[in-house]
Protein backbone atom coordinates (compact mmCIF):
# COMPACT_ATOMS: atom_id res chain seq x y z
CA UNK A 1 0.00 0.00 0.00
CA UNK A 2 1.38 3.36 -0.93
CA UNK A 3 0.78 6.31 1.33
CA UNK A 4 -0.13 9.62 -0.17
CA UNK A 5 0.01 11.75 2.97
CA UNK A 6 2.58 14.46 3.43
CA UNK A 7 3.64 16.87 6.12
CA UNK A 8 3.86 20.65 5.66
CA UNK A 9 5.34 21.96 8.88
CA UNK A 10 3.02 20.76 11.64
CA UNK A 11 0.18 20.33 9.17
CA UNK A 12 -0.64 16.86 7.93
CA UNK A 13 -2.17 16.60 4.46
CA UNK A 14 -3.88 13.36 3.55
CA UNK A 15 -2.95 13.83 -0.07
CA UNK A 16 -0.28 16.02 -1.66
CA UNK A 17 -2.81 17.79 -3.88
CA UNK A 18 -4.25 21.18 -2.94
CA UNK A 19 -6.05 23.89 -4.88
CA UNK A 20 -4.16 27.00 -5.96
CA UNK A 21 -5.32 30.29 -4.56
CA UNK A 22 -7.70 32.23 -6.77
CA UNK A 23 -8.49 29.24 -8.93
CA UNK A 24 -10.88 27.44 -6.64
CA UNK A 25 -13.04 30.22 -5.26
CA UNK A 26 -13.81 29.51 -1.62
CA UNK A 27 -14.15 25.77 -2.22
CA UNK A 28 -17.95 25.84 -2.63
CA UNK A 29 -17.72 26.45 -6.35
CA UNK A 30 -16.13 23.07 -7.02
CA UNK A 31 -17.81 21.09 -4.25
CA UNK A 32 -20.47 20.05 -6.74
CA UNK A 33 -17.88 18.41 -8.99
CA UNK A 34 -15.48 16.74 -6.61
CA UNK A 35 -15.33 15.46 -3.07
CA UNK A 36 -13.38 18.16 -1.24
CA UNK A 37 -12.57 15.60 1.46
CA UNK A 38 -10.08 14.05 -0.92
CA UNK A 39 -7.90 17.15 -1.22
CA UNK A 40 -4.91 17.67 1.02
CA UNK A 41 -6.17 21.20 1.55
CA UNK A 42 -8.31 23.86 0.01
CA UNK A 43 -6.35 27.06 -0.61
CA UNK A 44 -8.80 29.92 -0.94
CA UNK A 45 -8.75 33.11 -2.97
CA UNK A 46 -6.49 35.83 -1.51
CA UNK A 47 -8.18 37.60 1.38
CA UNK A 48 -7.59 41.21 2.38
CA UNK A 49 -8.70 43.09 5.49
CA UNK A 50 -11.45 44.97 3.66
CA UNK A 51 -13.41 43.51 0.78
CA UNK A 52 -12.06 44.49 -2.63
CA UNK A 53 -13.92 45.01 -5.86
CA UNK A 54 -11.08 44.06 -8.15
CA UNK A 55 -10.08 45.43 -11.52
CA UNK A 56 -12.32 46.57 -14.37
CA UNK A 57 -12.87 44.04 -17.17
CA UNK A 58 -11.60 42.52 -19.38
CA UNK A 59 -9.74 40.68 -16.66
CA UNK A 60 -8.47 37.65 -18.55
CA UNK A 61 -7.32 36.64 -21.92
CA UNK A 62 -6.15 33.43 -23.44
CA UNK A 63 -2.56 33.04 -24.61
CA UNK A 64 -0.74 30.08 -26.18
CA UNK A 65 -1.17 27.24 -23.67
CA UNK A 66 -1.96 29.72 -20.97
CA UNK A 67 -3.97 32.65 -19.78
CA UNK A 68 -3.35 36.09 -18.37
CA UNK A 69 -5.41 37.31 -15.47
CA UNK A 70 -5.71 40.52 -13.63
CA UNK A 71 -8.55 39.93 -11.24
CA UNK A 72 -7.14 42.57 -8.95
CA UNK A 73 -7.65 40.51 -5.83
CA UNK A 74 -11.40 40.90 -5.73
CA UNK A 75 -12.46 39.25 -2.49
CA UNK A 76 -15.10 39.34 0.20
CA UNK A 77 -12.73 40.58 2.89
CA UNK A 78 -11.72 39.03 6.17
CA UNK A 79 -15.03 39.54 8.00
CA UNK A 80 -17.28 37.96 5.42
CA UNK A 81 -14.77 35.20 4.87
CA UNK A 82 -14.80 34.22 8.52
CA UNK A 83 -18.58 34.47 8.78
CA UNK A 84 -19.77 33.07 5.49
CA UNK A 85 -17.01 31.10 3.79
CA UNK A 86 -14.93 29.41 6.48
CA UNK A 87 -17.83 27.57 8.17
CA UNK A 88 -18.64 25.80 4.91
CA UNK A 89 -15.05 24.66 4.46
CA UNK A 90 -14.99 23.45 8.05
CA UNK A 91 -17.69 20.90 7.23
CA UNK A 92 -15.10 18.97 5.20
CA UNK A 93 -12.29 16.79 6.43
CA UNK A 94 -9.61 18.76 4.65
CA UNK A 95 -7.19 21.46 5.70
CA UNK A 96 -7.95 25.10 5.04
CA UNK A 97 -5.15 27.33 3.83
CA UNK A 98 -5.91 31.03 3.57
CA UNK A 99 -3.98 33.11 1.09
CA UNK A 100 -3.61 36.65 2.43
CA UNK A 101 -2.69 39.93 0.90
CA UNK A 102 -2.04 43.34 2.41
CA UNK A 103 -0.80 46.77 1.53
CA UNK A 104 1.34 47.05 4.61
CA UNK A 105 3.03 44.96 7.22
CA UNK A 106 0.21 45.86 9.59
CA UNK A 107 -2.45 44.57 7.19
CA UNK A 108 -0.67 41.25 6.98
CA UNK A 109 -0.28 41.01 10.73
CA UNK A 110 -3.93 41.75 11.42
CA UNK A 111 -5.07 39.27 8.80
CA UNK A 112 -2.74 36.57 10.02
CA UNK A 113 -3.61 36.85 13.67
CA UNK A 114 -7.38 36.94 13.06
CA UNK A 115 -7.17 33.85 10.87
CA UNK A 116 -4.89 32.14 13.37
CA UNK A 117 -7.45 32.86 16.08
CA UNK A 118 -10.17 31.47 13.85
CA UNK A 119 -8.17 28.26 13.65
CA UNK A 120 -7.33 28.05 9.97
CA UNK A 121 -4.70 25.39 9.34
CA UNK A 122 -2.27 27.51 7.42
CA UNK A 123 -1.71 30.97 6.11
CA UNK A 124 -0.18 31.53 2.73
CA UNK A 125 1.50 34.92 2.41
CA UNK A 126 0.85 36.28 -1.02
CA UNK A 127 3.80 38.58 -1.50
CA UNK A 128 3.90 38.03 -5.19
CA UNK A 129 0.66 39.09 -6.80
CA UNK A 130 1.50 40.94 -9.99
CA UNK A 131 -1.89 42.58 -10.22
CA UNK A 132 -1.81 45.11 -7.45
CA UNK A 133 0.99 47.57 -7.73
CA UNK A 134 1.61 48.74 -4.22
CA UNK A 135 2.16 46.37 -1.33
CA UNK A 136 2.40 42.73 -2.31
CA UNK A 137 4.77 42.76 -5.21
CA UNK A 138 7.17 44.86 -3.30
CA UNK A 139 7.61 42.41 -0.44
CA UNK A 140 8.11 39.61 -2.92
CA UNK A 141 11.12 41.08 -4.65
CA UNK A 142 12.71 43.05 -1.81
CA UNK A 143 15.00 40.86 0.23
CA UNK A 144 14.91 42.84 3.48
CA UNK A 145 11.19 43.50 3.47
CA UNK A 146 10.40 39.86 2.80
CA UNK A 147 12.50 38.71 5.74
CA UNK A 148 10.95 41.26 8.05
CA UNK A 149 7.43 40.43 6.97
CA UNK A 150 7.83 36.68 7.34
CA UNK A 151 9.46 37.03 10.74
CA UNK A 152 6.72 39.34 11.99
CA UNK A 153 3.92 37.06 10.83
CA UNK A 154 5.61 33.97 12.19
CA UNK A 155 5.87 35.72 15.53
CA UNK A 156 2.16 36.50 15.57
CA UNK A 157 0.94 32.97 14.84
CA UNK A 158 -0.07 30.54 17.56
CA UNK A 159 -1.29 27.54 15.62
CA UNK A 160 -1.41 28.17 11.92
CA UNK A 161 1.36 26.97 9.70
CA UNK A 162 3.08 29.72 7.71
CA UNK A 163 3.61 29.34 3.98
CA UNK A 164 5.34 32.03 1.95
CA UNK A 165 4.30 32.23 -1.69
CA UNK A 166 7.26 33.34 -3.74
CA UNK A 167 7.38 35.68 -6.68
CA UNK A 168 8.82 34.23 -9.90
CA UNK A 169 10.07 37.62 -11.10
CA UNK A 170 13.47 37.38 -9.44
CA UNK A 171 16.74 36.19 -10.88
CA UNK A 172 17.40 33.73 -8.06
CA UNK A 173 14.31 32.28 -6.45
CA UNK A 174 16.35 30.04 -4.19
CA UNK A 175 17.68 33.09 -2.46
CA UNK A 176 14.18 34.34 -1.66
CA UNK A 177 13.14 30.90 -0.47
CA UNK A 178 16.10 30.90 1.84
CA UNK A 179 15.17 34.30 3.20
CA UNK A 180 11.68 32.97 3.95
CA UNK A 181 13.12 29.87 5.60
CA UNK A 182 15.57 31.87 7.70
CA UNK A 183 12.78 34.18 8.81
CA UNK A 184 10.80 31.22 10.08
CA UNK A 185 8.44 30.28 7.28
CA UNK A 186 7.29 26.68 7.65
CA UNK A 187 7.07 26.16 3.91
CA UNK A 188 7.25 27.98 0.61
CA UNK A 189 4.85 27.80 -2.29
CA UNK A 190 5.74 28.63 -5.87
CA UNK A 191 5.24 29.89 -8.43
CA UNK A 192 2.72 32.66 -8.63
CA UNK A 193 1.77 33.87 -12.08
CA UNK A 194 4.42 35.56 -14.26
CA UNK A 195 3.59 39.08 -15.43
CA UNK A 196 2.67 39.24 -19.10
CA UNK A 197 0.87 41.26 -21.74
CA UNK A 198 -1.30 40.63 -24.78
CA UNK A 199 -2.30 43.29 -27.28
CA UNK A 200 -5.21 43.63 -29.68
CA UNK A 201 -3.44 44.89 -32.79
CA UNK A 202 -6.60 46.37 -34.27
CA UNK A 203 -7.52 48.58 -31.34
CA UNK A 204 -3.90 48.78 -30.13
CA UNK A 205 -5.23 48.26 -26.64
CA UNK A 206 -4.00 45.72 -24.15
CA UNK A 207 -6.29 42.70 -24.05
CA UNK A 208 -6.44 43.09 -20.30
CA UNK A 209 -7.73 46.38 -19.04
CA UNK A 210 -5.05 46.59 -16.37
CA UNK A 211 -2.41 46.16 -19.16
CA UNK A 212 -0.32 43.60 -17.29
CA UNK A 213 -1.77 40.31 -16.16
CA UNK A 214 -0.34 37.18 -14.60
CA UNK A 215 0.46 34.24 -16.86
CA UNK A 216 -0.64 30.80 -15.68
CA UNK A 217 -1.29 27.41 -17.24
CA UNK A 218 0.82 24.82 -19.10
CA UNK A 219 2.92 27.50 -20.80
CA UNK A 220 4.73 28.28 -17.54
CA UNK A 221 5.27 24.72 -16.38
CA UNK A 222 8.93 24.40 -17.44
CA UNK A 223 9.76 27.66 -15.65
CA UNK A 224 7.87 26.68 -12.52
CA UNK A 225 9.53 23.27 -12.43
CA UNK A 226 12.95 24.85 -12.74
CA UNK A 227 12.20 27.17 -9.85
CA UNK A 228 11.01 24.29 -7.68
CA UNK A 229 14.19 22.43 -8.54
CA UNK A 230 16.36 25.43 -7.67
CA UNK A 231 14.46 26.03 -4.45
CA UNK A 232 14.70 22.40 -3.37
CA UNK A 233 18.46 22.61 -3.53
CA UNK A 234 18.51 25.63 -1.25
CA UNK A 235 16.00 25.07 1.54
CA UNK A 236 15.00 22.25 3.84
CA UNK A 237 11.42 23.40 4.46
CA UNK A 238 8.75 21.77 2.29
CA UNK A 239 7.80 23.19 -1.07
CA UNK A 240 4.29 23.42 -2.47
CA UNK A 241 4.86 23.41 -6.21
CA UNK A 242 2.53 24.83 -8.84
CA UNK A 243 2.41 26.34 -12.28
CA UNK A 244 0.73 24.67 -15.21
CA UNK A 245 0.00 21.31 -13.61
CA UNK A 246 -2.70 19.68 -15.74
CA UNK A 247 -2.45 16.00 -14.87
CA UNK A 248 -0.79 13.42 -12.67
CA UNK A 249 2.29 13.26 -14.84
CA UNK A 250 2.85 17.01 -14.46
CA UNK A 251 2.31 16.73 -10.71
CA UNK A 252 4.86 13.94 -10.48
CA UNK A 253 7.39 16.07 -12.34
CA UNK A 254 7.02 18.71 -9.61
CA UNK A 255 7.37 16.12 -6.87
CA UNK A 256 10.47 14.62 -8.46
CA UNK A 257 11.88 18.14 -8.80
CA UNK A 258 11.42 18.66 -5.07
CA UNK A 259 7.83 19.56 -4.23
CA UNK A 260 6.27 17.96 -1.15
CA UNK A 261 2.80 18.96 -2.30
CA UNK A 262 1.36 20.40 -5.49
CA UNK A 263 -1.28 23.04 -6.12
CA UNK A 264 -3.68 22.99 -9.06
CA UNK A 265 -4.81 26.31 -10.48
CA UNK A 266 -5.78 26.98 -14.08
CA UNK A 267 -6.39 23.27 -14.73
CA UNK A 268 -9.58 23.43 -12.65
CA UNK A 269 -11.07 25.74 -15.25
CA UNK A 270 -10.40 23.27 -18.02
CA UNK A 271 -11.45 20.19 -16.11
CA UNK A 272 -13.06 20.61 -12.69
CA UNK A 273 -12.13 17.03 -11.80
CA UNK A 274 -8.41 17.64 -12.25
CA UNK A 275 -7.48 17.57 -8.55
CA UNK A 276 -9.01 14.18 -7.83
CA UNK A 277 -7.84 12.72 -11.12
CA UNK A 278 -4.32 13.73 -10.13
CA UNK A 279 -4.65 12.10 -6.74
CA UNK A 280 -5.78 8.88 -8.43
CA UNK A 281 -3.01 9.17 -11.00
CA UNK A 282 -0.28 9.63 -8.40
CA UNK A 283 -1.66 6.69 -6.50
CA UNK A 284 -1.56 4.36 -9.53
CA UNK A 285 1.92 5.56 -10.43
CA UNK A 286 3.18 4.69 -6.98
CA UNK A 287 1.58 1.27 -7.09
CA UNK A 288 3.01 0.62 -10.52
CA UNK A 289 6.48 1.63 -9.35
CA UNK A 290 6.17 -0.14 -6.00
CA UNK A 291 6.72 3.01 -4.02
CA UNK A 292 5.36 3.07 -0.51
CA UNK A 293 5.65 6.73 0.40
CA UNK A 294 5.85 10.00 -1.47
CA UNK A 295 9.08 10.79 0.34
CA UNK A 296 10.74 8.27 -1.94
CA UNK A 297 9.87 10.48 -4.87
CA UNK A 298 10.29 14.00 -3.54
CA UNK A 299 13.40 15.56 -4.99
CA UNK A 300 14.51 12.25 -6.50
CA UNK A 301 15.60 13.74 -9.83
CA UNK A 302 18.56 11.83 -11.22
CA UNK A 303 20.54 14.82 -12.27
CA UNK A 304 23.69 12.88 -13.14
Amino acid at each position, binding site marked *: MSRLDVQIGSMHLKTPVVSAS*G*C*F*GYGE*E*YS*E*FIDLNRLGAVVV*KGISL*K*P*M*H*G*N*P*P*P*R*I*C*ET*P*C*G*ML*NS*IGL*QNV*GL*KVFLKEKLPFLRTFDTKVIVNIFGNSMKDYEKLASSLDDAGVDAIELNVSCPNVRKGGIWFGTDRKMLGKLVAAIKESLQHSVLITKLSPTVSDIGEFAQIAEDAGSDAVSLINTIPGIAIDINTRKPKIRNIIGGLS*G*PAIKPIALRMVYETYRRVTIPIIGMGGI*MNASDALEFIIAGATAVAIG*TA*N*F*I*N*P*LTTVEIIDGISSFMKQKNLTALDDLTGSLHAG
Partner: protein
Amino acid sequence: MSRYFTATITANLSLNSRHFLMELTSPKNENQALPGQFYMIGAGRGYDPLLKRAFSLFRNTPDGFQILYRIQGRGTALMRDMKAGTSVEVLGPLGRPYPEPSKKQTSLVIAGGVGIASVFSLVEKFPKQAYMLYGARSGEDLFYVAELRDAARALILSTDDGSLGKKGTVMDSLQELVSTHAPLLNERLIMYACGPEQMLREVSHFGMVHNIQTYISFEAHMACGVGACLSCAVAVKKKKRKQKSYQDGEPLYKKVCTDGPVFDAGDVAW
Protein backbone atom coordinates in the same frame (compact mmCIF):
# COMPACT_ATOMS: atom_id res chain seq x y z
CA MET B 1 -25.27 13.30 -12.72
CA SER B 2 -22.62 15.85 -13.30
CA ARG B 3 -22.39 19.16 -15.03
CA TYR B 4 -19.02 18.11 -16.43
CA PHE B 5 -19.28 15.47 -19.08
CA THR B 6 -18.03 14.17 -22.38
CA ALA B 7 -20.49 14.82 -25.16
CA THR B 8 -20.56 13.32 -28.61
CA ILE B 9 -21.21 15.60 -31.52
CA THR B 10 -24.15 14.19 -33.44
CA ALA B 11 -24.33 16.91 -36.08
CA ASN B 12 -22.41 20.01 -37.08
CA LEU B 13 -24.27 21.84 -39.82
CA SER B 14 -23.23 24.89 -41.74
CA LEU B 15 -25.98 27.54 -41.72
CA ASN B 16 -23.83 29.83 -43.83
CA SER B 17 -20.12 30.41 -44.13
CA ARG B 18 -19.78 31.92 -40.65
CA HIS B 19 -22.59 30.28 -38.70
CA PHE B 20 -22.97 26.69 -37.64
CA LEU B 21 -25.34 24.54 -35.64
CA MET B 22 -23.84 21.84 -33.48
CA GLU B 23 -25.84 19.12 -31.86
CA LEU B 24 -24.39 17.30 -28.87
CA THR B 25 -25.41 14.53 -26.57
CA SER B 26 -25.71 14.99 -22.84
CA PRO B 27 -25.75 12.28 -20.18
CA LYS B 28 -29.07 10.64 -19.38
CA ASN B 29 -30.77 12.11 -16.33
CA GLU B 30 -28.76 15.26 -16.75
CA ASN B 31 -30.68 18.47 -16.19
CA GLN B 32 -31.73 20.14 -19.37
CA ALA B 33 -30.69 23.74 -19.76
CA LEU B 34 -33.28 26.49 -19.47
CA PRO B 35 -33.49 29.37 -21.94
CA GLY B 36 -30.65 31.82 -21.28
CA GLN B 37 -28.33 29.23 -19.75
CA PHE B 38 -25.11 28.26 -21.44
CA TYR B 39 -22.51 25.54 -21.84
CA MET B 40 -18.74 25.72 -21.98
CA ILE B 41 -17.18 23.54 -24.62
CA GLY B 42 -13.58 22.40 -25.04
CA ALA B 43 -12.60 23.24 -28.60
CA GLY B 44 -8.99 22.12 -28.61
CA ARG B 45 -6.99 18.98 -28.33
CA GLY B 46 -3.84 19.57 -26.42
CA TYR B 47 -3.58 22.83 -24.51
CA ASP B 48 -3.87 25.31 -27.35
CA PRO B 49 -6.49 26.74 -27.31
CA LEU B 50 -6.67 26.20 -23.58
CA LEU B 51 -9.94 27.59 -22.26
CA LYS B 52 -13.42 26.31 -22.88
CA ARG B 53 -15.77 28.48 -24.97
CA ALA B 54 -19.20 29.64 -23.82
CA PHE B 55 -22.30 28.99 -25.96
CA SER B 56 -25.92 29.55 -25.11
CA LEU B 57 -28.42 26.77 -25.19
CA PHE B 58 -29.99 27.10 -28.60
CA ARG B 59 -32.48 24.27 -28.26
CA ASN B 60 -32.87 21.09 -26.26
CA THR B 61 -33.14 17.78 -28.09
CA PRO B 62 -34.27 14.38 -26.83
CA ASP B 63 -30.67 13.23 -26.35
CA GLY B 64 -28.91 16.48 -25.63
CA PHE B 65 -28.85 19.98 -26.93
CA GLN B 66 -27.92 22.26 -29.79
CA ILE B 67 -25.82 25.39 -29.97
CA LEU B 68 -25.73 27.94 -32.74
CA TYR B 69 -22.31 29.48 -33.13
CA ARG B 70 -20.52 32.03 -35.19
CA ILE B 71 -16.89 31.66 -36.27
CA GLN B 72 -15.08 34.22 -34.19
CA GLY B 73 -11.52 33.08 -33.68
CA ARG B 74 -9.41 29.98 -33.21
CA GLY B 75 -11.72 28.01 -30.97
CA THR B 76 -14.81 28.32 -33.12
CA ALA B 77 -12.77 27.62 -36.24
CA LEU B 78 -11.66 24.33 -34.69
CA MET B 79 -15.26 23.55 -33.76
CA ARG B 80 -16.36 24.09 -37.34
CA ASP B 81 -14.00 21.35 -38.47
CA MET B 82 -15.28 18.77 -35.97
CA LYS B 83 -17.10 15.88 -37.51
CA ALA B 84 -20.11 14.05 -36.14
CA GLY B 85 -18.80 11.36 -33.83
CA THR B 86 -16.13 13.56 -32.26
CA SER B 87 -16.11 13.81 -28.45
CA VAL B 88 -15.82 17.11 -26.63
CA GLU B 89 -15.68 18.01 -22.97
CA VAL B 90 -18.62 20.05 -21.78
CA LEU B 91 -19.43 21.98 -18.63
CA GLY B 92 -23.03 22.95 -18.06
CA PRO B 93 -25.75 23.95 -18.05
CA LEU B 94 -24.39 27.08 -16.41
CA GLY B 95 -25.67 30.44 -15.31
CA ARG B 96 -29.08 31.87 -14.58
CA PRO B 97 -31.83 31.51 -17.13
CA TYR B 98 -34.22 34.21 -18.27
CA PRO B 99 -36.92 34.67 -15.66
CA GLU B 100 -40.08 33.35 -17.25
CA PRO B 101 -42.86 35.73 -18.17
CA SER B 102 -45.92 35.45 -15.95
CA LYS B 103 -49.23 34.48 -17.49
CA LYS B 104 -50.27 38.10 -17.55
CA GLN B 105 -47.12 39.41 -19.16
CA THR B 106 -46.47 40.01 -22.82
CA SER B 107 -42.91 39.29 -23.93
CA LEU B 108 -40.85 41.41 -26.23
CA VAL B 109 -37.87 39.37 -27.35
CA ILE B 110 -35.07 41.13 -29.16
CA ALA B 111 -32.18 39.38 -30.87
CA GLY B 112 -29.29 40.93 -32.72
CA GLY B 113 -27.14 38.65 -34.87
CA VAL B 114 -25.95 35.48 -33.19
CA GLY B 115 -27.83 36.70 -30.07
CA ILE B 116 -30.67 34.62 -31.50
CA ALA B 117 -28.92 31.59 -30.03
CA SER B 118 -29.74 32.69 -26.52
CA VAL B 119 -33.42 33.64 -26.93
CA PHE B 120 -34.60 31.09 -29.49
CA SER B 121 -35.61 28.48 -26.92
CA LEU B 122 -37.35 31.13 -24.84
CA VAL B 123 -39.61 32.03 -27.74
CA GLU B 124 -40.29 28.37 -28.48
CA LYS B 125 -41.10 27.66 -24.86
CA PHE B 126 -44.04 30.08 -24.80
CA PRO B 127 -45.65 29.57 -28.18
CA LYS B 128 -47.57 32.43 -29.73
CA GLN B 129 -46.79 34.59 -26.77
CA ALA B 130 -43.84 36.80 -27.72
CA TYR B 131 -43.34 39.72 -30.02
CA MET B 132 -40.03 38.84 -31.55
CA LEU B 133 -37.68 41.39 -33.12
CA TYR B 134 -34.76 39.83 -34.88
CA GLY B 135 -32.14 41.71 -36.80
CA ALA B 136 -28.87 40.97 -38.52
CA ARG B 137 -26.54 42.41 -41.11
CA SER B 138 -28.24 40.77 -44.02
CA GLY B 139 -30.88 38.17 -44.76
CA GLU B 140 -28.45 35.30 -44.96
CA ASP B 141 -27.59 35.88 -41.31
CA LEU B 142 -31.19 35.41 -40.15
CA PHE B 143 -31.70 31.81 -39.13
CA TYR B 144 -34.68 29.57 -38.38
CA VAL B 145 -37.11 32.23 -39.52
CA ALA B 146 -39.87 29.74 -40.31
CA GLU B 147 -39.66 28.20 -36.84
CA LEU B 148 -39.67 31.62 -35.24
CA ARG B 149 -42.67 32.69 -37.24
CA ASP B 150 -44.52 29.65 -35.91
CA ALA B 151 -43.38 30.17 -32.35
CA ALA B 152 -43.80 33.90 -31.97
CA ARG B 153 -46.98 35.92 -31.72
CA ALA B 154 -45.39 38.27 -34.23
CA LEU B 155 -41.98 38.18 -35.86
CA ILE B 156 -40.41 41.37 -37.09
CA LEU B 157 -37.24 40.92 -39.07
CA SER B 158 -34.76 43.61 -39.93
CA THR B 159 -31.43 43.77 -41.71
CA ASP B 160 -28.82 46.46 -42.02
CA ASP B 161 -28.81 46.07 -45.78
CA GLY B 162 -32.55 45.61 -46.18
CA SER B 163 -32.09 42.26 -47.88
CA LEU B 164 -34.72 40.66 -45.64
CA GLY B 165 -37.38 42.31 -43.44
CA LYS B 166 -37.14 46.01 -42.73
CA LYS B 167 -33.99 47.89 -43.52
CA GLY B 168 -32.57 49.10 -40.24
CA THR B 169 -31.74 47.87 -36.77
CA VAL B 170 -33.86 46.00 -34.27
CA MET B 171 -34.08 49.28 -32.34
CA ASP B 172 -35.74 50.92 -35.34
CA SER B 173 -38.17 48.01 -35.45
CA LEU B 174 -38.81 48.35 -31.76
CA GLN B 175 -39.56 52.08 -32.03
CA GLU B 176 -41.85 51.41 -34.93
CA LEU B 177 -43.62 48.57 -33.16
CA VAL B 178 -44.54 50.67 -30.15
CA SER B 179 -45.55 53.67 -32.24
CA THR B 180 -47.79 51.63 -34.57
CA HIS B 181 -49.06 49.34 -31.81
CA ALA B 182 -49.34 51.99 -29.12
CA PRO B 183 -51.68 49.87 -26.95
CA LEU B 184 -48.81 47.41 -26.54
CA LEU B 185 -47.24 49.78 -24.08
CA ASN B 186 -50.29 49.46 -21.88
CA GLU B 187 -49.86 45.70 -21.62
CA ARG B 188 -47.72 44.31 -18.86
CA LEU B 189 -44.54 43.95 -20.81
CA ILE B 190 -41.40 42.02 -20.09
CA MET B 191 -38.46 42.45 -22.41
CA TYR B 192 -35.59 40.06 -23.19
CA ALA B 193 -32.59 40.89 -25.30
CA CYS B 194 -29.38 39.33 -26.53
CA GLY B 195 -27.02 40.81 -29.06
CA PRO B 196 -24.13 43.25 -29.44
CA GLU B 197 -23.36 45.40 -26.43
CA GLN B 198 -24.45 48.60 -28.15
CA MET B 199 -27.85 47.07 -28.83
CA LEU B 200 -28.18 45.87 -25.23
CA ARG B 201 -27.43 49.35 -24.04
CA GLU B 202 -30.13 50.83 -26.22
CA VAL B 203 -32.63 48.17 -25.25
CA SER B 204 -31.91 48.87 -21.59
CA HIS B 205 -32.42 52.55 -22.14
CA PHE B 206 -35.66 51.88 -23.95
CA GLY B 207 -36.84 49.68 -21.09
CA MET B 208 -36.00 52.34 -18.55
CA VAL B 209 -37.76 55.10 -20.48
CA HIS B 210 -40.89 53.01 -20.89
CA ASN B 211 -40.64 51.45 -17.51
CA ILE B 212 -40.46 47.91 -18.85
CA GLN B 213 -38.92 45.08 -16.87
CA THR B 214 -35.93 44.21 -19.04
CA TYR B 215 -33.53 41.26 -19.01
CA ILE B 216 -30.42 41.20 -21.08
CA SER B 217 -27.89 38.46 -21.63
CA PHE B 218 -24.28 39.47 -21.28
CA GLU B 219 -21.01 38.16 -22.61
CA ALA B 220 -17.66 38.28 -20.84
CA HIS B 221 -14.39 36.45 -21.24
CA MET B 222 -14.63 33.45 -18.98
CA ALA B 223 -12.23 30.90 -17.59
CA CYS B 224 -14.10 28.67 -15.13
CA GLY B 225 -17.79 29.25 -15.82
CA VAL B 226 -18.68 28.32 -12.25
CA GLY B 227 -17.91 31.44 -10.23
CA ALA B 228 -14.48 30.42 -9.02
CA CYS B 229 -12.05 32.61 -10.94
CA LEU B 230 -13.73 36.05 -11.00
CA SER B 231 -12.77 36.58 -14.62
CA CYS B 232 -16.15 37.48 -15.97
CA ALA B 233 -16.79 40.74 -14.17
CA VAL B 234 -19.55 43.10 -15.22
CA ALA B 235 -19.98 46.39 -13.42
CA VAL B 236 -23.31 46.74 -11.63
CA LYS B 237 -24.94 49.57 -9.73
CA LYS B 238 -24.38 49.63 -6.04
CA LYS B 239 -27.17 49.18 -3.58
CA LYS B 240 -26.73 51.73 -0.80
CA ARG B 241 -26.58 49.31 2.12
CA LYS B 242 -24.12 47.01 0.44
CA GLN B 243 -21.73 49.75 -0.43
CA LYS B 244 -20.49 50.45 3.05
CA SER B 245 -17.65 48.05 3.51
CA TYR B 246 -16.11 48.81 0.12
CA GLN B 247 -13.98 51.79 -0.68
CA ASP B 248 -15.83 54.69 -2.20
CA GLY B 249 -15.75 55.32 -5.87
CA GLU B 250 -14.84 51.79 -6.87
CA PRO B 251 -17.26 49.99 -9.10
CA LEU B 252 -19.01 46.86 -7.93
CA TYR B 253 -18.77 43.75 -10.08
CA LYS B 254 -20.94 40.74 -10.61
CA LYS B 255 -20.01 37.50 -12.32
CA VAL B 256 -21.49 36.88 -15.73
CA CYS B 257 -21.15 33.12 -15.28
CA THR B 258 -23.12 32.64 -12.08
CA ASP B 259 -24.86 35.96 -11.35
CA GLY B 260 -25.72 36.11 -15.07
CA PRO B 261 -25.43 35.79 -18.01
CA VAL B 262 -28.96 37.19 -17.74
CA PHE B 263 -29.13 40.44 -15.79
CA ASP B 264 -31.89 42.81 -14.90
CA ALA B 265 -31.02 45.70 -17.21
CA GLY B 266 -31.65 48.13 -14.39
CA ASP B 267 -28.81 46.66 -12.35
CA VAL B 268 -26.06 47.10 -14.95
CA ALA B 269 -23.76 50.09 -14.56
CA TRP B 270 -23.15 51.03 -18.21
